[in-house]
């Protein structure tokens, strides 16, 4: 394969992994912007969502739901239902963790919250490992054939088209929510200035709850989509994605969900395209270097406000 078609194929992979990173990054950026702390457990929230969906899949299998795949996808209705339930459950779990832990530490400053989130990340990851074990767990056992896109000369699987479509749908949904609903506006106001929002009569506690719920549900969606893309999930995969997600957030600008989309796409694309030139195992290093360069030259990110 010549280099041009190889790179255009890598761009497709980049868009797919960018979609997944974006969903993780939006949630991290929202909580970072509103609660003012870097949540190191966010990657593991992605894993949690993916494993909760796996749990529902197992229940549906016991309930004998029809499992024939929805053509042209390689999976059927149960996975789509599990997807939705996984998002909801993860959102609820995030609110519960906030109520039990983060809420008590909110007055002690962002660094204590950060340390607490590192602890939460280890607890979540090892909870998953305790329940499901360390071995890969499969969403889909079927192998899907890639389809050729006419004219572009690149190949893509129908499942991957599904991943990109779901990501776009969720992003548009979030955009409409933030722009048009009262809660969305309250969230943006709180992100700008929490004290000002509070004196304007915004119920910041419920804004915080919604932020956790939406951010974590989107992370769960990202985790489940990663499971569909890779066919399997392991307890560590969310933690391994954390660096990519942070890089996307920093690149786009902390607190800016639109920046997170841009950052997620750039990190996804640069990671995949870099594999044409350097070893695949150094993908996280590429994301890391982009992040450091951004932090040093423009710490507020591409779309971040000062």
């Amino acid at each position: 394969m010549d280099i041009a078609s190889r790179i255009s194929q890598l761009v497709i992979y980049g868009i797919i992994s960018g979609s997944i990173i974006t969903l993780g990054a939006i949630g991290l950026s929202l909580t970072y912007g509103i609660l003012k702390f870097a949540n190191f457990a966010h990657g593991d929230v992605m894993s949690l969502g993916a494993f909760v969906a796996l749990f529902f899949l197992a229940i549906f299998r016991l309930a004998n739901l029809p499992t024939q795949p929805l053509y042209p996808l390689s999976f059927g209705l149960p996975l789509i239902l599990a997807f939705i339930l996984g998002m909801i459950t993860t959102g609820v779990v995030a609110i519960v963790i906030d109520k039990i832990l983060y809420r008590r530490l909110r007055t002690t400053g962002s660094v204590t919250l950060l340390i607490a989130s590192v602890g939460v990340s280890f607890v979540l990851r090892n909870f998953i490992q305790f329940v499901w074990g360390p071995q890969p767990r499969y969403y889909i056992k079927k192998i899907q054939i890639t389809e050729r896109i006419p004219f572009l000369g690149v190949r893509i699987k129908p499942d991957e088209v599904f991943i990109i479509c779901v990501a776009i749908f969720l992003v548009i949904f979030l955009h409409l929510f933030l722009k048009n609903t009262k809660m969305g506006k309250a969230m943006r106001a709180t992100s700008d200035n929490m004290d000002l929002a509070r004196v304007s009569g915004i119920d910041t506690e419920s804004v915080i709850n919604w932020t956790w719920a939406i951010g974590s549900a989107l992370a769960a969606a990202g985790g489940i989509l990663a499971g569909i893309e890779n066919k399997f999930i392991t307890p560590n995969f969310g933690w391994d994605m954390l660096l990519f997600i942070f890089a996307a957030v920093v690149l786009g600008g902390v607190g800016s969900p639109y920046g997170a989309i841009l950052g997620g796409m750039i990190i996804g694309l640069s990671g995949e395209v870099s594999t044409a030139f350097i070893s695949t195992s150094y993908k996280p290093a590429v994301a890391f270097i982009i992040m450091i360069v951004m932090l040093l030259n423009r710490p507020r990110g591409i779309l971040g406000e000062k």
Partner: protein
Amino acid sequence: MDTLIGILNYAVFFAITAGIFAILSLGLNIQWGYTGLFNIGIAGFYAIGAYTSALISGPPPGPMDWRTFGGFQLPWIVGFISAALVSGFIAFLIAIPTLRLKEDYLAIATIGIAEVIRLVLKNENWLTNSVWGIKHIPSPLSTPIENWVQHFLDTNPQAPFWLQSLVSNIYNWFYLGLVILIMGLIYWTIERMIRSPWGRVLRAIREDEVATGTAGKNVFWFKMQSFVLGAMVMGMAGSLYAHYARFIDASSFEPFFGTFLIWVMLITGGSGNNLGAIIGAFLIWGVWAGTEFLTSQWGLSGVRAASLRIMCVGVILEFILVLRPRGILGEEKVVSAILRKGDKV
């Protein structure tokens, strides 16, 4: 008597590991406890120290090895000092761009650095022998001591079992002495430095960077010294680990053992208190060992048991953060070579 010696032998083994963790915890205390530098990439410096020492004092690559570098078989002390120097030098290089970042960005940057170091350890076979690791790292003075043990066992075949098992374990006693000696020296040095004007500048930076800068102190340069010094201490711990375990591979420096456990130790003992750092290390290592006993009582083993134990350490951290954020000892209010504890400042 046999059981007693068994317990004693285990206690020595326990204390060696806890002592190495205490050194890591002291290193983190310089960076985080006194200067407020958020480093969650401890594992990286720990690993650099271990690999440096192993490559300098260890054997040359064998016929089955992938690595083509290292194995200079220099004395242990050369490996130990090089571990500190290389770790410090890499910390220096990392610090140039990252120390200008504010604390949560520094945290993100250090986790990235640890990840990159881990990737290098896993992928650069010529240097690290990849997943096969570096084997047969010599322990200091192990040949004369083990020869003596062999000689004792050969000449006293009728010695009671407890005496034989005590004598067989004598090398660990020696190594424990070495670890405690180095830990004590590091403790003493840091205490002296913290009680000097230099140490008070570090604490001033932690409390208010801008004010310290306005007072004419070169904030960046002081942070740099603290970061490099902490990393050197971590590198020393890496060397002690490598020469004790005699085998290292990338899995010894995973985020839990290499970084998270040390944070829990320091926070439990009390950030900004060197004695607290040591107490925290022994206490949390005790919890870690104790939970192993519990999980084996419940018939759990392997990865599941380890997961449960890690969850337990995580929950302890959260309890301390909520209930006693200053840790067991907490920070000393007065650190001065002249003023005493009760003196009014």
